[in-house]
C-alpha cells in the first residue's frame, strides 16, 4: 500500500461518511460541500502539477 493508495482510501472514507449523513438541510448542504472538495482533490492527487491545471482552478467572479 503506497501513499497515494492511502490518500485515495482516506478520500473514499470521507465521501462514504458524507454520503451516509442523514437528510436535513444543514447536514445535506455540508455533505455536498465536503463531496465537492473531495471530488476536486481526486482530480489532481497523484498527478504532475501543470500550468494548465492551475489556470483551470482560477476564480472567476460570476456576479
Amino acid at each position, binding site marked *: 500500500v503506497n501513499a497515494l493508495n492511502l490518500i485515495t482510501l482516506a478520500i473514499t472514507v470521507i465521501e462514504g461518511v458524507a454520503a451516509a449523513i442523514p437528510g436535513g438541510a*444543514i447536514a445535506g*448542504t*455540508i455533505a455536498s460541500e465536503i463531496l*465537492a472538495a*473531495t471530488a476536486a482533490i481526486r482530480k489532481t492527487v497523484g498527478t504532475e502539477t501543470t500550468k494548465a491545471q*492551475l489556470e483551470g482552478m482560477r476564480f472567476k467572479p460570476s456576479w
Partner: protein
Amino acid sequence: MKTLLLFAVTSLCLCLTACQPTDRTVRDAIAGETGFLDQAVKDHQTACAAVPTTVVCGAINRAGEARNVAIDAIEAYCSGIPTGNNAAFQVGGPCAPVKSAQATLAASLAGLTSTIKDLKAMLATEKVSK
C-alpha cells in the same frame, strides 16, 4: 458530524502534506478549497447576482481572490530552471521548484486557508439560522 467531517478533510490535507512534493501538496490543497468554494458559489449564485454586496458574497469573493494569489504563488514557485530535457513550466513542462519562493507560497496557502475557514464559519452560521 459536521465537525467530524471537517476534521477528516483537514486530516486528509495534512496527510497530503506529509506524502508529496511541496507543489503537489499546495496544488491539492487549492483543489480541495476550489471544490468547497465552487459549491458555495453555486449555492449563492442567485442571491449574490441579485445583491452582490452582502457579507457572504464578499467572503466568497475574498476566498476566490486568495485562491488566485495562491495559484500565482505556486506558478512562481514552479517557474525555475527546467531539469534535463524538460520543457519550462510556463509552456507545459513539470514544476521546477524555486526554493526561494517557498516562503511566499506557504504564506499564500495560509492566507487561502484562513479566508476559507472564515467562509466555512459564516456558511455554517447561515445554515443554522435558516
